[in-house]
């Protein structure tokens, strides 16, 4: 299953250190995300992606911190968080 951003063109981001504030002009909501989650959101916004490819993206971003297994777990947690705040949704097949 692939994930896609709901409205990537509506997102405005500002990063400070390891945290990012994301404003969604579609809903008017503002979210505080970890930098890694924001980068995964940006990757999904660029093109829909599945857990495996996103885990690889995360490993590339944080090569010292992630085994492939850990990366999968972290991606699944990030996707649940991003879906929970209505920034991403499963892509239609």
């Amino acid at each position: 299953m692939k994930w896609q951003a709901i409205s990537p063109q509506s997102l405005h981001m500002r990063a400070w250190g390891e945290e990012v504030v994301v404003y969604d002009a579609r809903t008017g909501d503002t979210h505080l995300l970890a930098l890694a989650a924001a980068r995964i959101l940006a990757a999904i916004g660029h093109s829909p992606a599945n857990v495996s490819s996103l885990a690889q993206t995360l490993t590339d971003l944080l090569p010292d911190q992630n085994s492939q297994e850990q990366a999968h777990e972290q991606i699944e947690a990030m996707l649940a968080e991003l879906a929970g705040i209505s920034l991403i949704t499963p892509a239609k097949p």
Partner: protein
Amino acid sequence: MKVSDLNPAQLQQRLQEAGLRIRTGPFVTRVHTSLAAAAEGIGLLYADYPLAEDEDFADFHIRLALPDGLRRWLRPQVLFLYDGTRTFKPLPVDQAFPMFEWGMNWCVSSHAHSYLIIHAAVLEKHGHAVILPAPPGSGKSTLCAALSQRGWRLLSDELALIRVADGCVIPLPRPISLKNASIDIMRHYAPDAVFSRKVSDTMKGTVAHMQAPADSVARASEWARPGWVIFPRYEAGADTHLTALPKAHAFMRAADNAFNYSLLGERGFASLAGLIEASSCHDFVYSKLDEAIDVFNNLRPAALLP
């Protein structure tokens, strides 16, 4: 011409007939009232404020009036009318001046959307503003009043105005609202300052207003650059403590304290991001005013740090 150039009779006449056009920061408010309590407060606490000319545009038209009917005579109440429309529930007539102040805040926070407006006290030194966002009861106004008496220029006690066009912090110096124990603390701390009389049993408890320093009123057209965003909290007996706050967290908390962040949409986000980017952000806990003043006097703008 200033409010103090009118004698009490002239002030009362102006308030009852043509309306008094008071200039506060970037706004002109035309005030009508025949209520003595409101006139007394305006004459006392707005003495240093310039008056606009009759032909000048007024941003807000307000009237403080007695209601018709029994309430005019039996436990009389005061109405706040904005553009002739009743805006709030009536209050006991002895609360006319606090209602005027609360209504003035409402006028700005509900209409002045060329600014990002944050519920915050704002002071300035050496061209840089310190913004103190905080919910009621945090000790914000007490700290603001003390700083305004110890070398910091008062920009506002309640409303930080961040001009959307350029991110400048725009002054709106008006009387400082004090509540309950803070009133006597500030009377003792600043014995030469001018205070309105206490009004009891308001929705905020006992309230009184402290006159804005004359220098702050005279310099109301001098904007400032963002310097610091500091979230104050009074805690009885606590050690004075200033701690760095991650900017993303400061952003979220400042947004929570903003009146029109959501209404401004992308412009609100950009304005707040610019403010946070340009500011050093901190949490601040205090219990002793003199120690708090020392901490603020040792602040250095981020732009000047090595």
